[in-house]
């Protein structure tokens, strides 16, 4: 995303009353300034976290550790990109963690082979088929969410909370108490090998998940900033009724964002089972909360219409670097949660305080101008 994008996400804040009039340059300046203020906070937090932990631990900035962090961040960031779309629409998706688990279990079962009914045969699909089906399952879960939310106008919180249980339950059913581990490797004779070679690979030294994150972030940026769909999403997230009367297909937009969120979860499911070499029943548990936290730290408004890809990615890095740093310096796991939670609240509170201070400052400056104007005219 560039700083010169048009207004969709360029004017998220009320501007001061005496904002410069007209002119392309002044517009550019106000755009970069306002977006810098939104994301600057998250970026500042990120720099602060890295500095503090780098001083506290010699191993923190170790290349090996950085790669580890990046891998963890990537999983969360991919989910957060989907979550961002949902939150831009004023919705929420609590089911993505369960969808990660479910797609993992589906993929695991496909590697174990399908019992074909009537015949005695077991079918072993090829890896690419497994990948397509698994991601498709994620998209399908999202589609179910989307239909229920957009067509029946059910509350996103309730629908996806229900789906959280359904997805986790189906994961347990599919795995039936057993992790699927060795089968993921595939067998030459069955023609289903090669999964790890791709999904646990490290092109140019970076884990594949990081590359996927980068690719999806670029894609999401283009989608949000340059495509009609993105503009429709921002518009319907800000004022759905007005968007509808402007011809925005609000129902379709709403359905699709949940499909996107589900697809992202499907991708993470595959990346994760490759990462831990096993499909487990608790895979992806609580991932939805981390994803929401990343989006919120990145400056998005839960009420919809406001948020950016860049902010979300930074938000995911904040959480990742913080969590890793706390482990490295040896903070107890119990305290880690306390600190992570406090940082999330702090990030949002700082945003609010900054906003209040800005408004006060603008009012004070304006009042001072009136006073000087009055004294000179008197």
């Amino acid at each position, binding site marked *: 995303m560039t700083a010169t994008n*048009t207004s969709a996400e360029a004017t998220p804040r009320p501007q001061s009353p005496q904002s410069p*009039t*007209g002119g392309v340059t002044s517009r550019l300046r106000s755009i970069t300034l306002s977006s810098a203020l939104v994301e600057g906070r998250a970026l500042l937090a990120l720099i602060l976290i890295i500095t503090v932990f780098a001083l506290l631990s010699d191993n923190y900035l170790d290349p090996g550790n950085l790669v580890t962090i990046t891998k963890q961040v990537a999983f969360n960031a991919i989910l957060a990109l989907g979550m961002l779309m949902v939150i831009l629409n004023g919705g929420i998706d609590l089911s993505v963690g369960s969808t990660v688990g479910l797609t993992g279990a589906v993929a695991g079962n496909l590697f174990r082979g399908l019992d074909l009914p009537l015949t005695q045969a077991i079918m072993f699909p090829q890896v690419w088929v497994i990948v397509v089906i698994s991601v498709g399952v994620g998209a399908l879960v999202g589609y179910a969410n989307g239909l229920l939310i957009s067509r029946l106008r059910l509350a996103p919180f309730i629908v996806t909370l229900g789906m959280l249980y359904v997805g986790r339950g189906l994961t347990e059913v599919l795995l039936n108490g057993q992790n699927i581990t060795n089968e993921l490797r595939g067998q030459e004779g069955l023609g289903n090998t090669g999964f790890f070679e791709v999904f646990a690979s490290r092109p140019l030294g970076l884990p594949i998940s990081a590359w996927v994150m980068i690719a999806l972030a670029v894609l999401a940026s283009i989608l949000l900033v340059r495509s009609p769909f993105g503009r429709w999403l921002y518009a319907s997230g800000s004022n759905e009724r007005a968007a509808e009367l402007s011809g925005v297909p609000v129902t379709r937009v709403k359905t699709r964002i949940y499909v996107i969120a589900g697809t992202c979860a499907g991708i993470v499911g595959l990346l994760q089972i490759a990462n831990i070499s096993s499909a487990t029943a608790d895979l992806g548990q609580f991932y939805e909360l981390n994803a929401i936290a990343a989006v919120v730290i990145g400056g998005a408004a839960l009420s919809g219409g406001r948020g950016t890809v860049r902010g979300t990615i930074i938000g995911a890095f904040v959480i990742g670097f913080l969590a890793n740093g706390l482990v490295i310096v040896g903070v107890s796991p119990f305290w880690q949660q306390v600190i992570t939670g406090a940082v999330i609240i702090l990030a949002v509170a700082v945003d609010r305080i900054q906003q209040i201070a800005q408004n006060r400052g603008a009012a004070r400056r304006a009042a001072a101008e009136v006073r000087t104007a009055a004294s000179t005219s008197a």
Partner: protein
Amino acid sequence: MSAPATATAPTDTEIGEVVLRAVGISKTYGVTKALKGVDFEVRAGQVTVLFGENGAGKSTLMKILSGVEQPTGGQLVLHEEPITLENTVDAVERGISIIHQETNLCPNLNVRDNIFLGRELHTRMGGIDYAREADITSRLMRQLEEEIAPQTPVADLRMGQQQIVEIARALAAETRILIMDEPTSALSASEVEVLFRVIGELTANGVAIVYISHHLEEAISIADHAVVLRDGELVAHEPASEIDLPWVVHRMTGRQAEYDFREEPRDFGEVALSVRNLTVADLGTGRVVVDDVSLDVRTGEIVCLYGLMGAGRTELMETLAGRDPMTAGEVLLNGENVADLSVSDRISRGLGLVPEDRQRDGVVQLLSVGSNLSLAGLRSVVRRGLISRGAESDRIRRGMAEVTVKAAGPGTPITSLSGGNQQKVVIGKLLMTDPSVLLLDEPTRGIDVGAKGEIFALLFQEAQKGLGVLYVTSEIGEAMTASHRIVVMNKGRVVREFDPRTSTRAEVMAASGESANPTTSTTTTDEAIGGTP
């Protein structure tokens, strides 16, 4: 909190005596001077009407009188005693209450609990004295001639009844000065009559009323005193006997008279929009709100749909736009039946709606002026699946010039614009889709007189180029001066059509079921309907 008295209690102030005086009140917000030394009097038992365009300082003055804001200069004098109102609670304790345009009641609570919300009466044990509260509520409702049981949930009440509950709430707090901000904007004609009767009773009992309304004729009809604000200054102050509509408009705008767009008759083109036997039933109640309506709009023709609130006008417009489902009938756009199409499909075929509630349905608050403007016609600037920035900013620039939006630039937040300019953006947004028929629901609501003229000028200019226009208004002056044809709706039905050049205001108003003068009603609704074909 003292026990509430009823408003009928005799008072020591005489009718016509000045109870509240504002002396040299000024208020500055940042660089804007909203009020510049306004002197203003409120008299017991009389209605003082405040006139002024949007931004003239009316609401600021009301906020200061009701304690919401403090003046930056000047003094309030209550009963010849200088006072400072710290906040609204302070104002209410001194007997000054305000009733806002939207009622501030909790719909989930009943009438009694709303009236005593925040001022509950207590028993000796410390609990709420429901019996005494209910007692006082019944007494107040009887006095206001609106027999609503104290236990009725507010959600079950009509807008007019809710307004009465607000008044009862003010009376329960021993209000002697009642400020009413656009109290009739959501009321039906009969509800307005009830409200005006209540106002008459209140003033007879010595309550001073300060009244604001954009409905000039209505406001003139109940005024004892007229005060006109313009650009934060009080420009005129006359007893009601000395004023009339042109006087008010002239003082408000500083310009002479209203706009007049009546044209010489010209030939209109083909029928662009044809509505046949359209019937719409309310989804919740099953009540028929639009009843067997048929009407045509030709290309280049501006048709005004005149009627009272609740006549089914908004329901008709929203159904035509595709937001609400219809029960029966046909909607033909250039000969094609669009009845089953979605809002967006209708827009792409050339039929769009400028909605009644600009804030709720018109503007997208978080988008800039430019993005709001290009939203509906976005498809036309898409190149290979992506929005072309060049094409988009080009369209926006042309659009802003066409509808004469006054804004710093396309990147300006839409919320920083005045109501009139926001409305121009909403209209411009639909014009960018090259519509063949534009529907507008109360396009000039809450817009000052100057901008109203500009909006109609724009519509007539587009009509010259072949746009068909169907717009709704409840202002008779607008219907008479800015349309080619008036279609009158009453109780869900189209009752009559008028040519504005050959008919009178009284005829049109009578057909709508409205009396020309709401306070001295002579024409009953039955007579009006009886007089129509």
